[in-house]
């Protein structure tokens, strides 16, 4: 379970998150929607400790992410993350991209890491690209590679930060399908997205972010069908 209570985050004087409360239960998929600049990415960076916080608390399975003694490198193994910018490691083949962290972070043997990596690449439909360098892959393939790379650490949670935003429209589908597959397999996911169709079909809950606050959170039927907040309604009218 990820439990976020009264989270405050600032960059210098700019307060980006102004008291966020959010709980993600095991097996849930939560989509986070909202205008650009509303703090969605920042929230994900705080959850896996890539960013510090100024107030409140984030607990992952009872572990306080920003407490002094927390071993972040260990904690991050439970939290897979896929970013908006494709960031496959360009100097490594697809297989090496996926096998590296299991080997050097988890301490798997070369053979075991390779086996894990191969299985994960097959899982995301890249079984025929093992020895290909990322430069030869399409954007959609690179994002699926990033998903496989995160999955290879066998995380309990997956954080997606607009994984499809930088893709050509015709490549969005294959990445969303992979994410859908993970959701069906029961992966717990926090998904920042502009794909309203995906949010509606796959999420258990949808949170609408507005200027660093959760303006409204509820099941997709509520958010997309009968939003309680006027701001939510206006945002959705604009993006559709």
């Amino acid at each position: 379970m990820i439990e976020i209570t009264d989270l405050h985050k600032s960059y210098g004087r700019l307060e980006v998150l102004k008291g966020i409360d959010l709980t993600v239960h095991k097996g849930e998929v939560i989509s986070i929607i909202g205008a650009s600049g509303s703090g969605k990415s920042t929230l994900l960076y705080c959850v896996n400790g890539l960013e510090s916080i100024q107030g409140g608390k984030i607990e992952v399975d009872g572990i306080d992410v920003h407490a002094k003694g927390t071993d972040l490198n260990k904690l991050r193994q439970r939290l897979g993350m896929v970013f908006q910018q494709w960031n496959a490691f360009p100097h490594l083949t697809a297989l090496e991209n996926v096998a590296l962290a299991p080997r050097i972070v988890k301490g798997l043997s070369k053979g075991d890491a390779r086996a894990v990596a191969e299985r994960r690449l097959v899982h995301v439909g890249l079984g025929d690209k093992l020895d290909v360098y990322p430069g030869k892959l399409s954007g959609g393939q690179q994002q699926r590679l990033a998903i496989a790379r995160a999955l290879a650490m066998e995380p309990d949670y997956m954080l997606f930060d607009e994984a499809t935003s930088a893709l050509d429209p015709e490549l969005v589908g294959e990445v969303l399908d992979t994410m859908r597959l993970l959701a069906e397999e029961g992966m717990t996911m926090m998904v920042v997205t502009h794909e309203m169709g995906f949010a509606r079909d796959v999420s258990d809950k949808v949170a609408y972010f507005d200027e660093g606050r959760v303006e409204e959170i509820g099941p997709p039927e509520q958010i997309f069908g009968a939003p309680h907040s006027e701001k939510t309604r206006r945002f959705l009218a604009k993006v559709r």
Partner: protein
Amino acid sequence: MEYTFHWRPVFNRLPDLLEAGLITLEVSALSMVIGIALGLGLALIRMSGNPAIAWFTIGWIEIARNTPALLQLFFFSFGLGAYGIHLTPYMVVLCGMAFNNAGYLAESFRGGFAAIPDTQMKAARSLGMTATQAYLRIIIPQVLRIVYYPMTNQMVWAVLISSLGMLVGFHELAGETQRQAFRSFRLFEFFLVTAVIYYVIVKIIILSSRLIAWRLFRY
């Protein structure tokens, strides 16, 4: 008056010249290894933004790049000598060239690091890698590729400026040539042959650099 070439004295001394060529290669290669380590350190310190030591790295880089290499060698011979520190000619050349290489390479490295998007670091850390692992496995291998050709050029440059060693009494290729040439009075012949040897050394460096790049960078 016609100049008549006499090649025999040169060819008799060719083994000495080739041996001195090896010394040139050795001191250049060593000064590169040290220069790469120091240059990497300078770049990392400068990027860390610590003002207390930033001025030191900036000073180093500025002096190395903007003053004659010869004066940098003199600093390690007469300069230190004035303070009672007497280095052997070999050490003078090695230190001076390492200093010079480090200054140039620090700037190449800095450019290399700047060219790697910071999302590479974020991605590595998000997988649970420590900062050190991320640097060693993800960032530095990519930087090395970016600075590979500048590094090759620096190695060529190192071989050529090591000839300044002859002015601080070091018998590398140029110094040894000078010594032999004055003994035999066949200056022109000696320096012509030596120029050819330098040329061959540089060509070998460039060719092997290409070969290594081809083996190393498959992406």
